[in-house]
């Protein structure tokens, strides 16, 4: 039995089956990503002042990946055109180029961009005093004047008016210090270095640690209960806490470049170097991390890497880009299938059908590119 119009176009609709199917599928994909976009807008518009994290993206990586995806989008049309011109060699060349670009996109994301986020931390403080103490350590006593520009960037510029709390109105203790955790001090005063995550030296900082002071209170008021295996019985929303699992008195922290303005950094070396000087240089970490600062456990209100749980922004970021990455992965699998010898046989038997398949894959791939065209500005730039 043969399904009609699986390769030829139906005269009255002008479509072969696959094309009708893929456009319908893409329509539903529009609604899928559309819902996430609406969620993004709604959550951002409704965010309380100062809670929408901004300026934390590596924009260069984002731009690089955008260009990669654009290139792959162009190569896949070229592959299709080659088929139309009966140029099998050219087709394979362009198709492989597409696959390679797609792989580069994913590799950049999965082995560089995301892991870098998971080793990058935000610390907020229990009181303004404890915050001031740490910031003095990092930036010197004048730290309010040399105020990290990241603060301005981070607090949504949409809300600049008085009523909606501009950056200057967020309390000092809630203004996060960002950087990497390179070690910790236990209750006996011994220093521990934090090794590389999964043995990959590239991520040689603490990976996805998390602490929230509320957990301590919760333990005190017994709203967290433990089962026999020592794990909380009640999931009780989100009870993963590195400070509970490890004996940590204080963390050794390297403030990141994002903490201060680059210009200022170079013009006035005092701002950056301060932490180092404060610790006599000798205090500084031996493996050449440079300007470390020690933050006591009691001073920390919340410690979180840039993981999904960090903030609504990162939650949206990972969900959107994660879903997008899954689409890229799916596209790669389909394209690899089209490069297998099996597909060659399809081509020989029915070139029209094979060309149609490539066209459909192309339509899907362009859609993936299209989503990224919107993701890049809204997640990385705005």
């Amino acid at each position, binding site marked *: 039995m043969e399904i009609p119009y699986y390769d030829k176009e139906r005269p009255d609709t002008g479509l072969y089956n696959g094309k009708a199917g893929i456009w319908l599928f893409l329509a539903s994909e529009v609604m899928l990503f559309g819902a996430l976009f609406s969620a993004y807008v709604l959550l951002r518009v409704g965010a309380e002042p100062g809670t929408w994290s901004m300026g934390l993206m590596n924009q260069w990586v984002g731009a690089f990946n955008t260009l990669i995806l654009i290139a792959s989008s162009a190569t896949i*049309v070229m592959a299709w055109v080659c088929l139309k011109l009966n140029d099998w060699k050219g087709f394979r060349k362009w198709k492989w180029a597409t696959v390679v670009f797609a792989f580069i996109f994913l590799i950049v994301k999965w082995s560089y961009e995301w892991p870098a986020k998971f080793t990058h931390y935000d610390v907020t403080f229990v009181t303004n005093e404890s915050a001031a103490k740490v910031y003095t350590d990092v930036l010197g006593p004048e730290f309010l004047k040399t105020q990290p520009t990241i603060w301005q960037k981070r607090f949504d510029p949409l809300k600049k008016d008085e009523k909606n709390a501009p950056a200057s109105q967020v309390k000092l203790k809630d203004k996060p210090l960002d950087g990497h955790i390179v070690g910790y001090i236990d209750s006996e005063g011994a220093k521990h270095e934090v090794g590389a995550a999964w043995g990959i030296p590239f991520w040689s900082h603490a990976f996805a640690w998390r602490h929230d002071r509320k957990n301590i209170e919760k333990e005190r008021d017994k709203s967290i209960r433990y089962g026999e295996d020592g794990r909380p019985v009640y999931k009780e929303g989100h009870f993963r806490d590195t400070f509970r699992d490890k004996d940590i008195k204080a963390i050794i922290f390297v403030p990141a470049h994002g903490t201060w303005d680059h210009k200022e950094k170079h013009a006035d070396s005092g701002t950056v170097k301060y932490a180092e000087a404060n610790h006599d240089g000798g205090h500084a970490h031996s493996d050449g991390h440079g300007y470390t600062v020690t933050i006591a456990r009691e001073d920390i209100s919340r410690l979180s890497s840039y993981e999904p749980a960090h903030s609504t922004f990162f939650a949206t970021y990972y969900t959107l880009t994660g879903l997008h990455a899954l689409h890229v992965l799916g596209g790669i699998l389909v394209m690899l299938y089209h490069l297998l010898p099996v597909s060659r046989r399809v081509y020989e038997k029915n070139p029209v059908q094979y060309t149609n398949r490539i066209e459909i894959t192309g339509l899907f791939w362009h859609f993936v590119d299209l989503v990224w065209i919107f993701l*890049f*500005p809204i997640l990385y730039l705005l």
Partner: protein
Amino acid sequence: MSNDHSPEYYKKKFIPLIYLVGSILIVGTIITFAADKMGIAEKWGFINATIFAMSVAVVKASAVMYIFMHLKWDIKLKTISLTLGCTVIFFIGMMWLTVGSEIDSNKPGHEENTWNHVGQPEPETVPTER
């Protein structure tokens, strides 16, 4: 695109179009990126910067849809145009109505606040203070 274009058509017309769209995409990306690096958000205000970035994105997206996705040739097919039309309408409906009702709802501090928020903590103490 229908199957009846001649090889000449692809060589002479279509491949140049691909290069054109590719350039539009690259230039668009660079423009947005450069604009952000030059700090248009501070200079023009956030809303205008958003409108700018989204307009460039829409131009890029239209180019992709029009040439790469063959809509230049296929949009005349009713199946595709009607499906896309419906999708766009429902997408806008979903976006506009959900976000609209979020903006317009009776939240603490909102003008139209008709609800008595008895038992709600003071707004300042809610978000970040501990």
